[in-house]
């Protein structure tokens, strides 16, 4: 199967529901052909609404336009947009078996039984659900349903594939496995995909770009690396991954903290908000660092130690240390960090 997506352009697409609830601020975003964009944000921030506007299940407020390539589809109902959609609760048809579910879109398109059967067989193999073709939907496990839903959406060779938290209903282990399967599948299809999730690990794995959302508006758009290493603001920093956000006075190229000073690259004097990821810290002897603190807790999580250190900043700092390091609560240690790993967040000082 070759790439057959289109670019998606949203122009000033906002959504105010009939009850007056503003689910989405007017939003403009361009998604390139073949790209996978992940909308990431907490519950209720408008992710599903955004997806439904792209799908054609909601119309944007007046002034909003949705374009697929050069075609304006704002007033085109979903059934004529040729989008594949995987719903959070799958929306599989209980009155049809697995093969009939997967083949339904093809049947609607008037594709003959023989060709349909062949295509369904292809998809069954692609999604790894061989042997389940004649099962009814209520005889499937959650993971199997998810695969059927995906196969059904992809079967129609959509221009755009839309996925609304497709893995949320599954347990953690299965989720992780399906996540990487889904990743290779999306790459193989080369289709334009929009993926909605509140799970940042999922967003990191799947997204060419991530759109972090907050209360119906975009907080940041960027590659997973951008989002992780260069969050635009405190909200993104704290939502994506673990982050130590400290607010302090900046003087002579260093942040002045209760436990000493922390050198910062490109610092300007004055009040600043800075972020350091837990894995950026190194724990060193107290004498070897300008910043010191007292070890509060040490938690062994297998591949590393998660250490909290009090007294260095206003709030305890979260530090990831190698799992072989000898640290014990009560110990006073020094903390160092490569200067580039201290990230100043713009416009966030209180």
């Amino acid at each position, binding site marked *: 199967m070759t790439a057959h997506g289109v670019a998606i352009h949203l122009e000033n697409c906002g959504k105010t529901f*009939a009850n007056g609830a503003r689910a989405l601020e007017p939003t403009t975003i361009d998604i390139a052909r073949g790209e996978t964009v992940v909308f990431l944000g907490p519950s209720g921030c408008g992710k599903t609404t955004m997806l439904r506007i792209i*799908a054609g*299940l909601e119309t944007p407020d007046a002034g909003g336009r949705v374009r697929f390539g050069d075609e304006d589809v704002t007033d085109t*109902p*979903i*059934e*004529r947009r*040729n*989008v*594949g*959609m995987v*719903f959070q*609760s799958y*929306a*599989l*048809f*209980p*009155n049809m078996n697995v093969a009939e579910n997967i083949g*339904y*879109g093809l049947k*609607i*398109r008037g594709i003959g039984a023989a060709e349909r059967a062949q295509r369904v067989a292809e998809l069954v193999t692609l999604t790894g659900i061989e042997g389940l073709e004649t099962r009814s939907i*209520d005889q499937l496990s959650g993971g199997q349903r998810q695969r059927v839903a995906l196969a*059904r*959406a992809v079967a*129609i060779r959509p221009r755009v594939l839309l996925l609304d938290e497709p893995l949320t209903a599954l347990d953690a282990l299965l989720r992780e496995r399906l996540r990487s399967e889904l990743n290779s599948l999306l790459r193989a299809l080369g289709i334009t995909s929009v993926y909605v999730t509140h799970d940042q690990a999922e967003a990191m794995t799947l997204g060419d770009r991530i759109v972090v959302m907050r209360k119906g508006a975009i907080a940041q758009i960027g590659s997973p690396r951008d989002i992780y290493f260069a969050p635009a603001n405190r909200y993104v920093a704290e939502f994506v991954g673990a982050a130590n956000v400290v607010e302090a006075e900046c003087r002579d190229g260093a942040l002045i903290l209760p436990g000493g000073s922390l050198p910062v690259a490109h610092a300007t004097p004055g009040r600043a908000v800075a972020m350091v990821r837990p894995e950026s810290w190194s724990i060193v002897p107290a004498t070897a660092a300008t910043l010191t603190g007292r070890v509060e807790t040490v938690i062994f999580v297998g591949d590393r130690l998660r250490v909290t250190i009090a007294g260095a900043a206003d709030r305890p700092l979260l530090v990831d240390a190698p799992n072989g390091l000898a640290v014990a609560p009560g110990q006073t240690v020094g903390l160092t960090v490569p200067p580039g790993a201290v990230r100043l967040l713009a416009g966030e000082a209180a």
Partner: protein
Amino acid sequence: MTEMRRPLGPIIRRPHVLRARLLFAAQLVFTLLLAAFLIVPAGLSMLAGVTENYFIGVRSGLTLRWLAQVWELYADTILRSFVIAIATLVVTIVIGLPAAYALHRRGDRVARLVEEIITLPLAIPGLAIALALLLSYGNFSDFRRSWLFILVGHVIFTLPFMVRSIMAVLAAVNINLLDEGAASLGASPWQRFRDVIVPNVKPGLLAGSLMVVTLSLGEFNLTWMLHTPLTKTLPVGLADSYASMRLEVASAYTLVFFIMIIPLLVAMQFMAGRGGLTGGRR
């Protein structure tokens, strides 16, 4: 926690168990008495229908003569009743299914208002509905004289049952989601209705159908007002036989009525047991 508490359960609960059993026994006796109170008259009435002479009693012997006589006198009435019931069913499905779907899809204040209006006939005495129909259409004498006039009354009376039992299923299977699923695969509204909506509301449709047929067969109030001597139905005939026939014939008629309606009631009960009426699936 519950795991740990379990061994203590029987010891602590013993007095409760005893009390619960006593309560259950008392409830059982009460229920049986009440059931007997209600069932005995019906049983006696049916027995009278096959008794040679009711005033002498069962001693006079049992006979099917009265049943045969009822059939002779009222066969056309009984058949007409079935024709009306089936016609009512067809009309309530044709109107009720799309209506229920539309009301469910809209789900707003207008939809609730329409639902209330459809349900209104339940709260209004059948006599009043009949009177209204007579006032409005009584002058169209051909219509007035045909069984179609009764059909209209029955549709008004039974439609809410059909609409409500379909709507219950629509809500239970989250039909909007299935509808959106089908739409995303390119299905037009009509294709969605045919391939997804109808198959998935079948339990509600079936439950509603049984209810409509049963109600139509048994409806008396409204029908009595609307009927003409040539458009009697089963229950109207029943009243007629009570008024003008000897007691044994009237009782035999009751028996016929029961034979007609009980299989439907049993089927309805069976459906309810399988969750059809409450909207659950399989």
